[in-house]
């Protein structure tokens, strides 16, 4: 308890001091609360002004003669009239429905209106010249020349629009002219078709004939969700940036700042372990980062709320209302068509009466579309009742930010611990900031990226994508689990490295020694076990490497033999080789680090019992787990794929690659290096739990995480009690090997009462045979628990390394 009290003392003091620091306050409070809304307001205003400016602006278009001028003016006028008529109809419809009439033109899309355009007849110069020397925004030349008197004559024309590509206004006019002229073309098209139809079918409205397809988009997403899509792209990036910025100053100040002001020496001489000091400081950095996140999120929410952005989103957008209106209109029209024609094949007789009820014939279509409208209305009403989207999503996002803050708190602390002065620390912070911001930025530009595959374990990027998925409400729990666990692993490694560096004398006193002592082998003192920081850092680095290797090296295109070799190589090169080399480099006692000693006879008996019983027991655990959490299709597929990939290989190769090699290599890493690193600082139980969890994380299977944790704990326990790595290796081999062999050998199936079939996943084998194996297993464990002991207490192992 006293330990934690000291951490608390450090935490409280650092927090008080940090909150009195102007720089921290500026980054943490002023930026989100003052600067941020101001920037947002300026941005919004700029957008609005730009739009309204464009709309208010006057444009000149040059034409070669009066006929051109008249024709173009008519085109603009017709288009304006049409739009006004459409708006009036819409307004009438909404008013009839008892709703408020919105301005359909609201929003940020600019349209070129007739009154904005001055059409000038240019007679003296060529249009090309006149547009080039910026007298006009654009020029129009029609060939053959238009006839304003008959706007739909049967002559086909070519229209050339002359504009300046580099002038945004000129380009705007060009784009608008493009639209306007396209509409005109459509209009002429319609006139001609109507004329044709009248020739063929006689007089009458032929609108239905002319519009074989009318398209109305029906989005099932609530307006809230659509707003969320935008938010989900922008906010994670902003939050990541702001959180890192907020945490930066305290991280520097609490480490390099303390060193620079000469208080570190005093602190180091006080009777408190470095770990506790670092823990307190780390707590403050995470706290400040989270306060920063909260303030930013709060400020954003308030901003969006005040500026009415969320209102805009939670109400129907005008264009969307128009869309709904269009859909309703279409339904009505098609109902009218169908009711009159009966068969609906030809619109020829549509001028006829309205005798038959339309309801039955178009019931289906009508149902779905009315359903849509009702659904939409309901969603809109719901959205209006809520205070705003960000407010409801904020707590979830805050939760997702915690592991991020923890990770970057750790990384920053580690980077700053390395620095001797404030300035030096600021330099180190640059790459750290980049490491946070760039992945976040890249991912926010890739809205289709889902949280899967390598991304799950990619630091920062996984958190950003997770946040986005949380916003959109489409995350899955197993992915979330992997993200959180891997982030915690990285964070733990970062914090331990920070603690290690913080107390190191080369870092503590800038006037003595150099960083070489941290890295050069000849300055290392021989030790028995790896330092905790090294052990954790090693697994943290190996984890993504292993993940990439696993997904990158095995391919379905290459042969099974090649894949087998790759699996084996991955195991050796990633699990075993690095830690053995590292152990040599750190001048560790290899025999003690990797627990290379023969177990006692009594322990050998226990090991044999465990070897015999491990396969059915782990199978039982797996079945229990699958009964509670049924295995996903993905997992079944994976097992099937593995069977397909390696099915044609000889049995001994399969056993070697999937039983023997992993058992040896994984034990070397987890029960050797990692356990050795942890057991100096932790009790046996804690070591078993930590190693178990990390062991499970490495197996990248959220569905079986509990199972792997338990197995990892058992193996760690075996290793700690026997003081030897060999029993754990043997039990590991036995488990993997027997579970593989059961699928091949009928005799083994009978002996263990297991089936090799995938279909039996999740059926718990409750029977006497299973019970016997459980008992054997428990006896084995008990034998280990009663005799022998933690390695530390055994002769020759008691003294700390010198």
């Amino acid at each position: 308890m006293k330990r934690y009290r000291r951490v608390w003392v450090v935490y409280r003091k650092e927090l008080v001091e940090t909150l009195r620091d102007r720089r921290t306050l500026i980054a943490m409070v002023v930026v989100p609360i003052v600067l941020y809304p101001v920037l947002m307001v300026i941005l919004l205003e700029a957008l609005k002004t730009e739009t309204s400016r464009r709309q208010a602006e006057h444009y000149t278009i040059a034409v070669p003669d009066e006929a051109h001028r008249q024709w173009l003016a008519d085109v603009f006028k017709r288009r304006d009239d049409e739009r006004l008529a459409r708006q009036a109809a819409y307004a009438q419809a909404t008013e009839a429905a008892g709703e408020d009439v919105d301005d359909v033109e609201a929003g940020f899309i600019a349209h070129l209106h007739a009154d904005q355009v001055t059409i000038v007849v240019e007679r003296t110069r060529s249009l090309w010249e006149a547009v080039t020397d910026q007298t006009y925004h654009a020029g129009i030349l029609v060939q053959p020349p238009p006839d304003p008197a008959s706007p739909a004559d049967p002559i086909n024309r070519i229209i050339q629009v002359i504009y300046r590509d580099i002038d945004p206004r000129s380009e705007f006019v060009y784009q608008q002219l493009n639209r306007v002229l396209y509409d005109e073309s459509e209009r002429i098209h319609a006139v001609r078709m109507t004329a044709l139809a009248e020739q063929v079918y006689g007089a009458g409205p032929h609108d239905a004939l002319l519009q074989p397809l009318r398209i109305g988009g029906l989005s099932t997403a609530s307006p809230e969700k659509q707003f969320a899509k935008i938010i989900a792209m922008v906010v994670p990036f902003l939050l990541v940036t702001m959180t890192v910025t907020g945490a930066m100053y305290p991280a520097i100040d609490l480490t390099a700042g303390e060193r620079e002001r000469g208080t570190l020496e005093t602190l180091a001489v006080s009777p408190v372990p470095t770990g506790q000091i670092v823990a307190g400081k780390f707590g403050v950095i995470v706290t400040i980062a989270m306060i920063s996140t909260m303030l930013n999120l709060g400020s954003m929410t308030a901003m969006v709320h005040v500026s009415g952005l969320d209102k805009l989103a939670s109400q129907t957008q005008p264009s969307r209302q128009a869309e709904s209106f269009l859909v309703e209109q279409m339904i009505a029209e098609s109902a009218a068509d169908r009711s009159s024609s009966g068969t609906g094949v030809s619109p020829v007789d549509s001028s006829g009466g309205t005798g038959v009820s339309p309801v039955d014939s178009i019931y289906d279509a009508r149902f779905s579309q009315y359903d849509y409208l009702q659904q939409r209305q309901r969603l809109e009403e719901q959205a209006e009742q809520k205070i705003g989207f960000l407010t409801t999503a904020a707590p979830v996002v805050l939760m997702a930010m915690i592991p991020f803050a923890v990770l970057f708190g750790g990384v920053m602390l580690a980077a700053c611990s390395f620095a001797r002065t404030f300035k030096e620390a600021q330099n180190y912070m640059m790459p750290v900031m980049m490491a946070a911001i760039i992945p976040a930025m890249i991912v926010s530009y890739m809205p289709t990226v889902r949280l899967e595959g390598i991304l799950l374990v990619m630091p920062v990027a996984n958190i950003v994508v997770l946040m986005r998925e949380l916003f959109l409400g489409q995350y899955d729990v197993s992915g979330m689990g992997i993200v959180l666990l891997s982030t915690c692993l990285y964070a733990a490694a970062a914090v331990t490295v920070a603690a290690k560096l913080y107390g190191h004398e080369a870092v503590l006193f800038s006037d003595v020694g150099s960083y070489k002592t941290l890295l050069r082998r000849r300055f290392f003192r021989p030790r028995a076990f790896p330092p905790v920081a090294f052990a954790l850092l090693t697994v943290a680095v190996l984890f993504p490497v292993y993940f990439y290797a696993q997904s990158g090296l095995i391919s379905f295109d290459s042969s099974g033999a090649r894949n087998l070799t790759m699996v084996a190589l991955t195991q050796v090169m990633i699990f075993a080789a690095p830690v053995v080399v590292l152990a040599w480099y750190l001048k560790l006692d290899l025999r003690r680090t990797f627990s290379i000693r023969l177990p006692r006879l009594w322990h050998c008996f226990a090991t044999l019992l465990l070897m015999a019983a491990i396969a059915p027991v782990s199978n039982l655990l797996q079945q229990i787990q699958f009964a509670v959490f049924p295995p996903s299709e993905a997992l079944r597929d994976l097992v099937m794929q593995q069977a397909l990939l390696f099915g044609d290989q000889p049995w001994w190769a399969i056993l070697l690659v999937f039983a023997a090699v992993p058992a040896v290599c994984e034990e070397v890493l987890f029960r050797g290096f990692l356990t050795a690193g942890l057991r100096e600082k932790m009790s046996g139980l804690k070591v078993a739990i930590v190693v178990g969890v990390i062991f499970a994380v490495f197996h990248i299977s959220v569905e079986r995480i509990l199972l792997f944790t338990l197995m990892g704990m058992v193996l760690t326990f075996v290793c700690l009690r026997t003081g030897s790595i060999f029993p754990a290796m043997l039990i590991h081999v036995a488990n993997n090997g027997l579970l593989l062999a059961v699928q091949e050998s009928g005799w083994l199936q009978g002996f263990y009462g297991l089936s090799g079939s995938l279909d039996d996943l999740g059926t718990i084998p409750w029977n006497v045979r299973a019970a016997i194996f459980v008992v054997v297993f428990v006896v084995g464990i008990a034998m280990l628990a009663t005799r022998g002991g933690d390695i530390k207490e055994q002769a020759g192992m008691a003294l700390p390394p010198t």
Partner: protein
Amino acid sequence: MIEVHELVKVFPTTEGGENRAVDDVSFNVAAGEIFGLLGPNGAGKTTALRMVSGLLTPTSGWVRLNGHDVRVDRETAKRSLGYLTANTGLYQRLSPREVLRYFGLLIGMERTAVDRRIEVLIEWLDMSSFANLRCGGLSTGQKQRTNIARALMGDPPILIMDEPTLGLDVLTNRVVLDFIRAEGTRGKAIILSTHYLDEAETLCDRFGLLHEGALRALGSLAELREQSDRQRLSEIFLHLCGLQEHVLDHGLENGGRGASDAEDCGARSGGSSSDGGVS
């Protein structure tokens, strides 16, 4: 109280070689004794004291404080230690009172005990006028008084002081020296490292002369006088370090404060002193 045994510290140099900053230094300090660790700049005083207080790990040798090995029993050993240097900083944004409270709680004192102790120290060191101001705005003297109070928070039986009077004005200098004397008479084991030799001469009971990492002489003033056949500490120092002629050449012997003299000759003497090993 303080036992220092065959202490060695080797630093790597930038050229890839080795620098024996402290070379086989041994001495003991009993309770109630003020031990002066003297030597020019770069002699290894600070490195030695950092090893004694557990800030640096010795390459070989060991230190016991109050019976506890500093490396094995780090926290317990440090608990009996008060540490003070001239360039020890204070937390700029905390007040002296808050600094004292922080360190009091860190060494594991109870809250009420901490408060009582703070009042005692504030009164004793006459700190009440600035006890609640931020440390960033204090004068050098006020800061050093706060530092003394901090070192005394847990009333440790051992005090290690590395150049505690460096850069102080006459008044504060007086305060620091009085405090050291008083603590000595209260039965504490004190190591005082300084290159103000006249200060050391009046304060210390025994001396260790450190030069180029090695202890060249060890003993009381009387013993040193006998060994060197010199009267003043600065003369003894120069003689025992084998620097005499060199310094006389430069006519520096009659300076009031031996500090800068020793410093200069230490810096200039280079490798010429291998002949004068005494300890």
